[in-house]
């Protein structure tokens, strides 16, 4: 286990290093930030002085090493638009994203697993068919379309819930619904199929043969194993959401990482984009690592492979 951990951790560091390098060179291609940061009527001398002060006139390799050195110290540069440390800006927007992602993942897992069990137990009956249709459309509806339809119905027609913004529970409902719909459908489909598979396994048959009540068999024996792939999927989905639910946050004016990222891209605020990309890659790889570890711990068979 220790060897596995060390190897996976090393890989993770390598990936983060790779992402940082990629982003650095991508933004280098993007062009000279001096033209973006200085007023349009800046003189050539002002531009030269500025480039020198910011280190843009140094050789590329020097700039790159300098950049990596700063990253190691947690310095992600300064936002061009807000004249504030990029890291602080990202951290300020993180709680909103985490709140949204946790809520979305929470309801989608609970409901998805619940409906998945129902569908598996009622396999091929009308309830199952209806749920499969729900699952299929849940996976097919693009998030922004769902978001718009929800706004149209609940905010504009019924005036029940706010159109957007950050605040109390009322503000959370629609974005969380929108964001979780896809994961809910997937969780449902996954639960259904892996539970059906598990219900056909020998140990379940044995349990049934021993005369245990069906609900007990389903929950105690089959579900435990069937849930592993579902939770794995939900965890990975959650990891990618930490990078910002870009579209959902944009539609609902939700002040999270995703909206910050879109604004930063539109404003060509590259240090901020850089920080967001690197930090979300960090979140993604960390959760990935945790999932791997948990997987091994939960499922001893993997260890043999």
């Amino acid at each position: 286990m220790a060897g596995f951990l060390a190897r996976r951790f090393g890989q993770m560091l390598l990936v983060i290093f790779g992402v940082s390098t990629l982003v650095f060179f991508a933004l280098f291609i993007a062009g000279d930030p001096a033209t973006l940061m200085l007023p349009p009527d800046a003189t050539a001398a002002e531009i030269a002085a500025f480039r020198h002060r910011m280190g843009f006139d140094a050789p590329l390799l020097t700039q790159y090493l300098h950049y990596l050195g700063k990253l190691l110290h947690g310095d992600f540069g300064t936002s061009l638009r807000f004249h504030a440390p990029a890291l602080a800006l990202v951290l300020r927007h993180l709680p909103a994203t985490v709140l949204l992602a946790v809520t979305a993942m929470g309801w989608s897992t609970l409901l998805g697993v619940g409906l998945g069990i129902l569908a598996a137990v009622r396999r091929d009956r009308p309830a199952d068919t209806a749920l499969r249709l729900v699952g299929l459309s849940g996976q097919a509806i693009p998030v922004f379309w769902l978001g718009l339809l929800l706004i149209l119905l609940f905010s504009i027609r019924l005036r029940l819930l706010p159109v957007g913004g950050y605040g109390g529970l009322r503000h959370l409902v629609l974005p969380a619904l929108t964001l979780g719909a896809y994961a809910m459908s997937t969780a449902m489909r996954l639960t259904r199929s892996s539970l059906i598979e598990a219900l056909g396994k020998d140990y379940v048959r044995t349990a049934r043969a021993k005369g245990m009540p069906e609900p007990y068999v389903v929950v105690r024996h089959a579900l435990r194993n069937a849930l592993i792939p579902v939770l794995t999927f939900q965890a990975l989905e959650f990891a990618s959401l930490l990078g910002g639910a870009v579209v959902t946050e944009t539609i609902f004016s939700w002040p999270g990482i995703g909206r910050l990222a879109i604004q930063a891209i539109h404003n060509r605020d590259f240090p901020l984009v850089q920080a967001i990309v690197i930090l979300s890659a960090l979140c993604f790889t960390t959760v990935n690592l945790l999932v791997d570890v948990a997987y091994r711990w939960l499922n001893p068979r993997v260890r043999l492979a």
Partner: protein
Amino acid sequence: MSARTGAPFRGRPSTRRRLRADIALGPVLLLGLALCFAVGPALWPKSPYATTLLAIYHEPGTAFGQWHPFGTDQLGRDMLARLLLGGRISVAIVLLSGVLAASVGSLLGTISGYFGGLVDAAIMRLADIQLAIPLILSILLVIAILGPGMQNLVLVLGLSGWATYARAARARVLELRELDFLQAARAIGASPGRILRVHLLPNLVPTQVVLMSLDLPRLVVAEASIGFLGMGIQPPEPTLGNLLADGQTAILYAPWMIVFPGLAVCMLVIGFNMTGDWIARRFGA
């Protein structure tokens, strides 16, 4: 091989009949949409570009002697004509970028699996890096740098999706490598290039096609999201994403503008999903 001649099949007979209906549905839906987008723009007599200022935001029906079954948009353009052309452009982008992603991914995955060692490690870490960057962010960032346009969109959508294909190809190559015919080919001194071209890549096609059909819905939604966020192909050119973006601003007074393009996206995604399942069942596993 078809379901009738006995593909390995578990389950009760009733499921079997049900699935046969399902089998027909995916490809039929997809073919129907493809047909609409392919010949629709030529058959539907209205222009997707012609503006009629008098008929701005006209609901589905007849406006000033013209029949607009899907209504008109913010410049009085016929929404059906724009949807047909937009669907065509979107599907073209999605297919091209899907093929690009599959080709690049297969090639890199094959090289990775065949040569192993350092090459393998390098390519697989590259795939990890690709997967660690949030997809939509990397796409938008590249578009912001390169500028919007059809070629750039295909390029960035294609190149952002190669990692999944590379992983699948690598796994398959690792299996194939141990098989007799490859050992034989190597024994008679075939060059790695030849082995790759003649023996490995053709054998990858089935798995990669299955993977692609399951990956295309992702591309449909990604294209629509980019258009929706205003960074897709420039107007007046319609795409499904551009139409949804137009509709979003008008949702309060012209809801039909988001309904039809949104349904088109859903149908495309369902069509691709079901077709993917269907292909997987018939040729895969």
